[in-house]
């Protein structure tokens, strides 16, 4: 049998469950509306500020530095899986890769990218 059939069945069942819950809610649920219900839900708190306010531009540096580690992880996990097959060569390659990333991080640190003034 085509292995895709399993996936299709899963998708169909998931869609059916969602539709049933929506439908039941639509038919049986009470309908009331008020000021409190219309306010945005913020973990049970009364919202402090309107949503959609501006973020400080300094976060972009944090985001960029995050990418450094993110990409490092993307490469580290597959490397760890085949570590035994790659052997010493793989180890040296990965050390070189991490070394380059480290220089990048060091550069950002020394140039003050980690300071929050």
């Amino acid at each position, binding site marked *: 049998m085509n292995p895709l059939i399993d996936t299709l069945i899963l998708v169909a069942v998931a869609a059916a469950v969602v539709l049933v819950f929506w439908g039941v809610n639509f038919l049986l649920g009470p309908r009331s509306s008020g000021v409190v219900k219309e306010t945005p839900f913020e973990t049970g708190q009364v919202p402090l500020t309107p949503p959609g306010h501006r973020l400080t531009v300094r976060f972009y540096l944090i985001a960029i530095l995050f990418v450094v580690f993110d990409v490092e992880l993307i490469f580290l996990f597959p490397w760890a899986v085949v570590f035994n*097959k*790659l*052997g010493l*060569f793989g180890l040296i390659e990965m050390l070189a890769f991490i070394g*380059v990333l480290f*220089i990048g991080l*060091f*550069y950002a640190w*020394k*140039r003050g990218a980690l300071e929050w003034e």
Partner: protein
Amino acid sequence: MIELSINWAAVTPVLILTGLGLLLVLLGTFFPRIYDETLAAIVLTGLAAMVFFTLQNWGENPATSFGMLLTDDATHAFSLIFSLSAALTVLLSLNQQERSYLLYSDYFALVLFATLGMYIMAASGDLIMLFLGLEVLSISLYVLAGFRRSNGFAIEAAFKYFLLGAFASAFFLLGIAFIFGATGSTQIAALAGEGQAASGMLTGLLPYGLILLLVGFGFKLALFPFHLWAPDVYQGAPSPVAAFMATGSKAAAFAGLMRVAAAFDLWSMVPWQNLLWLLAVLTILAGNIVALRQNNIKRMLAYSSIAHAGYMLIGVLAGIENGYPSLLFYLLAYTFMNIGAFGVLTWLGTAEHEILTLDDVRGLARIRPYSSVMMATFLISLAGIPPTAGFIGKYFVFIAAVRSGYLWLVIIALIGSMIGLYYYLRVTVVMFMQARGENSPESAGHQPFVAIALAVCFFAVFNLGLFPSRWLVVFQELVHLLP
């Protein structure tokens, strides 16, 4: 254990460029007061090592590292052009005007990384590697374009280049995905003959993938429908960077285009011939005609570089046997004359007053005769008048195209370059035959490094123009050695 062996011949240039780039970054971080000349000397030593390595390996058997990097004589020839372009850019950057705002350790590191990207593109034996090289090159250039952070034009340049470049990269990547979907491989060597029906046409997803790749290349080359970024970016970028973009990055894109085109043998398929034909004609006409209206010299040079990309595309169209040697010669000649022209602009400008418009150079020959003669020489070479390199370059490309049967294309290109004469010569006329204007620049003082770069370009323009055959012979031999 997987058997892994590195081919050092293919990897050494990458290691040189990466290592030196990282070294510069660290030097600038640890010793912020290091002399600009010291940093420049390090970069030039590295580029000289590249040239030495290239000449050492010239004519050796093609080598490949994991099928990713391919070192044949085409790689070597392009590597020479990239090293030259980068070295001249470094020399030009050491002038008064750029000194006032450049952070040299970062700037030179980015020039090296851009050169690395170009080398990877020229040496790529795999589409993924081609994409990697394109990205390394592009990202370095985005930053370099916006290096004058306080200048509004520079910010515009960096932003436009970044946004459009990101889109072009996405097109390129999608093209690779389509080709991978159609053939099951990203190895350029494995693509040959894939997905071709008995009629010789490409089938399935392949043509769509190739079109998308062509869009990516077209953006990097500033071919006609994808050229709109070029004037704004050249205007806002520092002049040496604009020269670097117009020469090195164009050469890199042509290197990649030639590899892909050779894998599919695009020259044997009529629709692709027609498409490249149309692109070349539109690029030449658009570049030359719009350049007529420019008063800003940097913008004029940007449109001129668009037109020149069109002429080079004729060399691509002429095929491997005829076209490749002439394309390489044209790229070499173009590197010298274009960097020379931007170099004179750098030479004349001061920190307070960048040379931009025709008014700035009005009557310049009276007060700055040497720079005016140089500027006139480079412009005459760009226009394609003998006895300069530009004339011989155009001659070889046009002859190659006629031999491959594109007579009408050459006639249109000739008309285009005749239109081009007007705007190149107009600058010369304004410099030599008009009275001095009010905006004439003051002397920028001694700039020995810029002078060296300009002297090299000046000499090379005449050397290539008067004794072209030895270079052409070298490039022709190279084509026969290609795998």
